[in-house]
């Protein structure tokens, strides 16, 4: 690809990753969440694949695979965390610790430190979707064949 595309991809990649992270982070407060944020971040990866070519990223396939598995394992493990009560029970909410503040009532700007295990699950899903979609785009680009380009 041309210099223009490469330069813009360099500028936009961190932006899209940060914005994806923002959407995941605020999943329990604003529209969006793990899947949407992960997809936004994966669009940044897709941009890199288009700008720099898939071959330079081919070695990252293993990393993406591990990241995807970790996301899945983390999500299921967070479900197991609730087994003291029931599966998926939100044991971290309202405990005062990590994401443990009580949800404020009335009009307010939103407290990020609430909702217990939900934000953690959003992160797990976010990483899984980022890795999964990223791997799909990368594989399409790697095995697409000459006539598809």
């Amino acid at each position, binding site marked *: 690809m041309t210099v223009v595309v490469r330069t813009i991809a360099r500028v936009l990649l961190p932006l899209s990753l940060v914005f994806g992270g923002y959407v995941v982070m605020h999943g329990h407060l604003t529209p969006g969440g793990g899947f949407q944020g992960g997809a936004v971040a994966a669009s940044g990866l897709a941009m890199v694949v288009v700008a720099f070519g898939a071959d330079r990223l081919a070695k990252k396939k293993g990393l993406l695979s591990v990241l995807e598995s970790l996301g*899945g394992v983390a999500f299921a493990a967070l479900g*197991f965390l609730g087994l003291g009560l029931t599966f998926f*029970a*939100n044991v971290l909410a309202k405990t005062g610790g990590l994401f443990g503040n009580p949800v404020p009532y009335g009009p307010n700007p939103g407290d990020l430190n609430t909702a217990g295990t939900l934000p953690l699950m959003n992160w797990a899903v976010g990483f899984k979707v980022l890795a999964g979609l990223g791997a799909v785009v990368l594989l399409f680009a790697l095995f697409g064949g000459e006539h598809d380009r």
Partner: protein
Amino acid sequence: MSVHAPILVIAIPLLGGFAVPILARIHRTVRDLWVVLIACVVAAGVGYVAAQVFSQGIWVYVLGAKTPQETRVSAGFPIRIMLTVDAMSAFMGLIAGILALAAFPFAVRFIPEEEGKTLALALGLLLLAGIAGMAYTGDLFNFFVFLEVTSIAACGLIGFRTWTSRAPEAAFKTMLLYSVSGLLFLLGIAFLYGEYGALNLAYISAQLRGSMVDRIALALFLSGLLMKVAAAPVHFWAPDAYGEAPAAKTLLLVVNTQVSLYGLWRILFTLYGGKLDAGVGWLVISMGLLTMAVAALMAIGQTDLGRLVAYGAVSQIGYMLLGVGVGLVSLTSRADYGLVAMKGGIFHMLNDALTVGLLFLCVGAVEWVKGTRDLRELGGLGHQLPAVALCFLLASLALAGIPPLNGFASKIMIYEGSFRLSPILTALAVLASILLLAVFARAFQGVFLGPRTEITGRIHWVFLFSMGVLAVGIMVLGLVPGFFVEQVVAPAAEALWRGRALYLAAILGG
């Protein structure tokens, strides 16, 4: 932990499936042992759940609540995701457990490392998780989610041999059919959600008025699920899919089809219980007859052993539809023969899982030693593989319903019940069985009899273990069917037949 058993049966294979690619990086043996361990844990789990449900009644498990029994919020309305395991769900879970026990050890040996064994095992565990979820859930939307989980995992397994030309085609066909069926099902849920504002199966069932919208939703559910169980006009994906997936994983595809069939029973008997037109029962019966006839006729011309067995598997779906359809027709009159036919249809689900499972394992073993499944090239394998030949013969006879094997035990109940409704139904069903016997006799003769030929591989003892599990099941169920019908099948059939009130009471209170 035992109080969490229903969810653990779903969650453990989910976690196990996601962990497989990580464990594969540590060591391949660790991964293989892990997969077999997970399959054993799931089998033990469904066994425990079934024992509890058969002795103590419906087991409700509420996800995310303070206690697993907290079915309603203070407004008196079920909103959480619930697992509702009644005798029929537990029975379905048992089928999945038995086949998982046979399929995973076989798969660990059968799938070559260079063909991406890690991913196949991971997808297999995810498919198992989806199947267990479909069997145990008591929530319509949750059912749809697990339906999609199984669809995606199944398509991944079907298109697994990407370097062949037929596997991707089969996967594409299946994916198209599965997506359409999933979307039809989702649209049905959307209709009911719009009307009643709830997704809990028991709650909607209690509210259901039988309005026009409900009928449209029923039509959508029926068409979606009949596609997924490979009933006759839309059966064409199944032979491709069963034939192309790695043999050990085809067992899970068979269970996947059956659990969709279970979903159909759940919709017809529990969700729409008492509000169905009599015509729906006749629709199910006619689909059943069409399926068994079309599949048995199609099996005659097959030259690929995998596809031939797959058509046999599809035709058996017809018997289940026939048996339970007779029950559905006679549901309003509460005629005894309806219950007999239903017991037969439900018993046949278990028998079919065992016989078709064993046939596919035999196909896998033949492919393993000869590298081909083409009937025109095979022959004389009985000299080198006497055990496989015996298993194939046993399963073929059971599939065709020859006494004293298990296929006979369930088919005789279907014949008995359907004969009282209309002898024509029975005559057609017997005719299809005879056709299948002829087809499988020819296949057995072509593959295992004749002059000795060269083989390139050796059968591993794990293959024989997996086959043995299923073969013993076939013989035990055939020789003493009475015990299993009394203890396991009858409660499952009763749960559909009269159990709707209990199912609703378990969630909504007395």
